[in-house]
Each structure stands twice: as C-alpha cells, then as structure tokens.
C-alpha cells in the first residue's frame, strides 16, 4: 500500500516535469503549428539559468590564507562571495542558499527573451515550410544550444542544491498510519508545477490575449481575418512557452544535477507526452504528463520488471506506439487534428 502510494507520488513528480515541458510544446504546436525539437533544449537552458545564478552569487574575492595549504603546498586561496561581503555573512549565505528559487526571477526574462528571439529570428521563417523542415531546423538548433552550454559549463553534471529549509524529508503518511516519507523539494516541485499550469490556463482563459490565442489555436486564418495582429501575439506565446519550459528546468535542478544533455534526454519523452495527450490539447498534455509519469514509476517496480523483463526500458515508447495506432488523436485531442 505505502509502496503503491509512493510510486504514485513519484509519478506525479516526474509527471510535473513532463507536463510542464509538454505544455509549452503543445502550446507552440497549437498556436504556431510548429514542431519544436529544440524545446527540450529550452528546459535545459532553464536549468542552466539556475546554475548561472548560483555561479554569479558565488563570485568571490580571493584572499590567501597562509595557515592552510592547497594541494601544491602553496597558501590556500580562500574565496569569499561578494554577496557575503556586501550583505554580511549570514544574509549572504542565505541568499546563496536560496539561489534556485531566486533563479525563477532571473530565468523568466531570460527565457522570454530567448523564446522571442528564437521565434522572430528563426521559427517565423518556417511557418510555411513543411513539418519536416521545422523538425530539422529545430533539431539543428537543439544541437547548437547544447554544445554552447557544454562549451561554457562542461559535460559533468553540476550540483545545485535546494535551500536548506526545503531540503529533507516530510512524513506524509504519519497521520494515516503509513510509512510515507517524501522529499520536501519534490513536493515543492509538484505544487510549483501546478501553480504554473494553473497560471497558464488562467491566463488563456481569463484574458483577452488568451482568448485570441485560443481562437487562433482553433482557427488561425479566421482570427487573422478579424484584423487582429495574431503574429505578434504568437511571438509572445512562444516566449511564454519557452519560459514555462525554462521554469520547469530551473526548479528541477535540485532534483537532478543538470548537465548539457538534458535537452535531448527530455525531448523524445516530451513528444511522447504531447502525442499521448493529443497534439494541440493543453489539458491533454498535462493529463498525459502525469499519467506517463505514474506509468513509468509503476513499470520500474520489481513486480513489473519481473513480470515483463525490460518493461521499465520500453514502457514510454510502448505507450506512445499503442496510442498512436489505436487513438491517434490522443487522449484529449480534437477529432480530425493531425489524424492523417
């Protein structure tokens, strides 16, 4: 029982990341009709926003400490971060400690800018080109982005810990007599994801901007005829999609130390999520994200792997294949969208 609940929690957690990435991906596909293979890379860049902020906050003055020796026997170089010398040691340390949540503020403008630049500079020219070309150019972009990140940050994963206050384990099951302890940060991530998803939906639901975009998703040409400058709105939409993926990346860094390869790792997966949920369906993407997360968790249990050896390796792809063959519009896709 506890094991089952634990796997569901795990699934929701993984699903949060999948859902956030897929949300942006399907938003871009729904509004712009563009298949963005660089979306995983945006997630990765978000994660490195967090790393960058951490590095910036750790910029230090170097003093030599003659009492200690470094590995060559020279006096040890002791680094004092500027923030500590500016705000005092305690305040400075807590600023560094909270660098991941702080990175949200840092990442939003950065990701919006990257999204807008990407759309204006590249994607715009591909609206009229075949899907294959869009896939290929964004695939090329994904390679470039990951190599640039590698050139700056190296290939090794970089540890970016959560704030001490949110590090540790919370006992969720004590009240109901179950042994169910779960990392605080993962719970935070789940709620953060829900908030972002809720924000995006509310934005689309309750603002005029959102209404136009939704109308545009339903029928791009008609909205264009109404004389609304839909292109500009779509540019902003692309920026928002990039920001959502970026935020998902920022907050994911304490769960797994980020490396330059994350984009490709999450790319195939997020496409599967979008397909399972239904191309262009926002609720579908969210639902499929959580569903696949949970399914993946269950497939990893000893029970599953002993029943069907290797099921944990292939479950995601198997689901994608079955969905595509049996119900190509996905769980919540509209009939007729991309079915043939």
């Amino acid at each position, binding site marked *: 029982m506890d094991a089952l609940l634990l796997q569901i929690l795990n699934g929701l957690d993984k699903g949060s990341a999948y859902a956030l990435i897929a949300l942006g991906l399907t938003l871009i596909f729904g509004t712009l009709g563009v*298949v963005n293979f660089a979306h995983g890379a945006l997630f990765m860049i978000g994660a490195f926003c967090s790393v960058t902020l951490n590095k910036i906050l750790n910029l230090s003055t170097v003093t030599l400490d003659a009492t200690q020796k470094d590995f060559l026997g020279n006096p040890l170089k002791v680094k004092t971060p500027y923030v500590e010398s500016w705000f005092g040691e305690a305040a400075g340390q807590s600023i560094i400690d909270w660098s991941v949540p702080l990175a949200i503020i840092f990442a939003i403008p950065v990701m919006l800018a990257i999204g807008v630049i990407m759309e204006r500079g*590249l994607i715009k*020219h591909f609206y009229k*080109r*075949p*899907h*294959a*070309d869009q*896939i*290929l*150019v964004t*695939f*090329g*972009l*994904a*390679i*470039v982005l990951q*190599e*640039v990140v590698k*050139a700056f940050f190296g290939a090794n994963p970089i540890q970016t810990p959560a704030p001490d206050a949110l590090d540790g384990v919370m006992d969720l099951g004590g009240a109901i007599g179950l042994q169910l302890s779960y990392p605080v940060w993962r719970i935070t991530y789940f709620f953060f994801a829900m908030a972002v998803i809720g924000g995006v939906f509310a934005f689309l639901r309750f603002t005029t901007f959102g209404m136009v975009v939704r109308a545009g998703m339903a029928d791009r040409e008609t909205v264009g005829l109404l004389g609304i400058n839909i292109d500009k709105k779509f540019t902003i939409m692309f920026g928002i999609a990039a920001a959502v993926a970026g935020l998902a990346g920022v907050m994911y860094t304490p769960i797994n130390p980020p490396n330059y390869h994350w984009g*490709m790792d999450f790319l*195939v997966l997020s*496409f*599967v999520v979008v*397909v399972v949920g239904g*191309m262009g369906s926002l609720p579908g993407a969210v639902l499929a994200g959580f569903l696949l997360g949970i399914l993946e968790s269950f497939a990893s249990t000893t029970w599953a792997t002993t029943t069907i*050896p*290797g099921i944990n*390796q*292939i479950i995601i*792809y*198997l689901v*994608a*294949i079955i969905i*595509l*063959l049996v119900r*190509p519009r996905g769980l919540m896709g509209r009939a007729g969208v*991309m079915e*043939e």
Partner: protein
Amino acid sequence: MLNLNQRDTGTFLFVIIITVLAPFVMNPFPTESAMAQFNAGYPDLMQRFVIFGIFAIGFNILFGLTGYLSFGHAAFLGVGSYAAVWMFKLLSYNIIPALVLSVIIAGIFSLFIGFLCLRRSGIYFSILTLAFAQMSFAIAYSVLSNPKFNLTNGETGLQVYADDIQLFKVENLTTPHLFGVKMNSTYELTLGAWDFQFNVGYYVSAVVMILMFYVSIRIFRSPFGLMLRAVKTNQTRLNYTGLNTRPYTLAAFVISGMYAGLAGGLLASMDPLAGAERMQWTASGEVVLMTILGGAGTLLGPVLGAGFIKYFENILSKINDNVLHAWFQYLPEWLENSLVWVLHWFTGKGWHLTLGLLFMIIVIFLPGGLMDGANRIREAIRGRKAKKNAKTPAE
C-alpha cells in the same frame, strides 16, 4: 547505356569514377605536409563513405521520394550488423552469407515496423518510428543481452570469439573475407611524396554501393518511383486515381530498410563488431542529416551528404589545439592565439557545434541541400536563371 538516359549515365559514371579513384581523390596532400591532416584517403574512412552512402541512398528512397521522415532507420542498420556478426559466429567469416542474412532480417524487421508506422503520416509517423527505434535500442542494449539470453552482448558489442561455433571455419581466416580475400588487406602505392592505400574492403563496399546506386537510379526512373513522388505531392489525388498508397509507401520503407540492413552488414564485414549505439535515435538523426545536407530527392545528394558528415566527424574531431597552433605558428603570436581561440570552439571537441550550425544553415538557406547549392552556383555562372518550368524534376 544500361537503360539510363544520358544525364543519369553521366551521374552514374561520375560516381563510378570517383569511387574507383577515391584513394587518389581523397588524398590530395602529400603525406608529410601540414595539410595531410585533411586527407581522407585511408581505408576506414573510405569504407565509411561508401557504406553510409548506401545507407543514405536507401533512406532517400523513402524520405526523398515519398517525404515520409523516419527517425528510426538506424534500427535497421543495427539489426543488419547483428545479423552479419551472428553469421560470422555461426557459419564462417565469409561475408556473403552475412550480407544476405542482414538484408533479409532488416527486410523482415522493416516490414513489421513499416506496416505499423505507415498507418500514420507526417509528424506522427516520425514520432512512431522514433519510438520504435528507441525501443529497439533499449532492447538491444540491455534486455537482449542478459547473461541468460545474450543476443546482442550489450554495451560491449557483439563480436566473434575464438570458441564460437563457426561451422565452416577456415584456418588462417580469422577476419571477414570474400572467398579467401581478406577485407582488411591493404596495398600501398607510393608516388613521390604521396602514399595511396588500396583496401580490399573498400573496393568490395564500393562495388556494392555502385550497384545499389544503380538500383536506386532505376527505382527513381521507374513507374514505381513516379508513384512515390506522387505520394509526396498529393496522396488524396493518388487515392482518387485508383492507387492504394499504403503498399507503395510500405514497399519504399522496406526497400530503404533493406538498404540500411545491407549497410549494417557491410559495416560488420569491414569490422566484425556490432554495437547497440548504432541503433540510437541520434544515429537515425545522422542519416537524416546526411540526406538533407546532400539534397533529399536527388540521386547524388545522399552520397555527398554521407561523405560530408563522415568527413567532418573523422577529420574535424581530430584537429586539437596543438594542430591549430602548428598551422598558425608563422603568424604573430597575438593573432595566432586569437585565431586558435576562435577555431578551438569549432574543431576538436567542438565539432558537434560546427555540425549543428552547418546543418541549420543548410536547412535555412539551402533546403535543397548541397545539390541545390551546386545548381544555384551553376546557374549563377551561366548568368541566367534557368526557366522554372524547364526544371527536370527529381534531379
């Protein structure tokens, strides 16, 4: 000649001449010169040129003609390699049974996957093939390599051991051979400051590629090829013209799968080892890059693209900072250092970045690939834009 029109005969002869003379063409710089770094005329790379050429030619029959973008063709290459190595393990090192089996197995495998994937088109088809390829990779990498049932030998790669069965084992033939002629035999010709290497494996692969290139020309120019191009243009019309598109696309898929299997079998024949990473989706992405880079839907493009990418992978990745410094040593030091600093990002360990950039540039500015670029240059030299309506299709 050979039932080809004049233009195709020209292309075909060009391919034959280039492949036969490759040991010379690829080795333009004297062995001891600084530029020797750029020579590509050594057996392994030349073999890769023609083998990946075969892979790309086959892929082009599917993607170039029908427009179906498969992200899973590396799976067939991998399957072909495994089949070939198994033939080495079970029968003998003779490459003929290995090649035959690799084509057959890849054909069956692609029939199965194609049958399922072709129920969808567009991006859905791409994602389906991607999912199948990733699944095949995972299965080959660990599921089918467990100690109880070891079909692929996992990370280490499938290879031939001395205690393997080898029913028709021949003494002294411990590497792949064609009726006794060893694939790894190399003859060398020294001509002044130049060394040229003539490798048996390369010429065997080259002959296979030339044959396969010929087959692909015939397919391109046949009614079947016409139908495939029609599939790309307008499936609705084709259906309402009384043609069932599914068998056409499936046939194209299987043919390209068999080409991939043959390429995989040849890879294993040149070097008897088959690894799972050949099946990864990034490897499938590579053949897509090759085809696009050269020019999808053109005859020569995929071969060019394959050569280009393999050249980059093997030559550019070996240019380290030391080599760069050696090139620019005659320059003033500040200039030398800044040049090296700039190039450093793009060569050696940075070659993936160059590849990504190059690829983007091609897709953005030259959607027709290198062939398109060559045509544009030719037209520019002629000084007039060729009439659009006089353009010969598919070339």
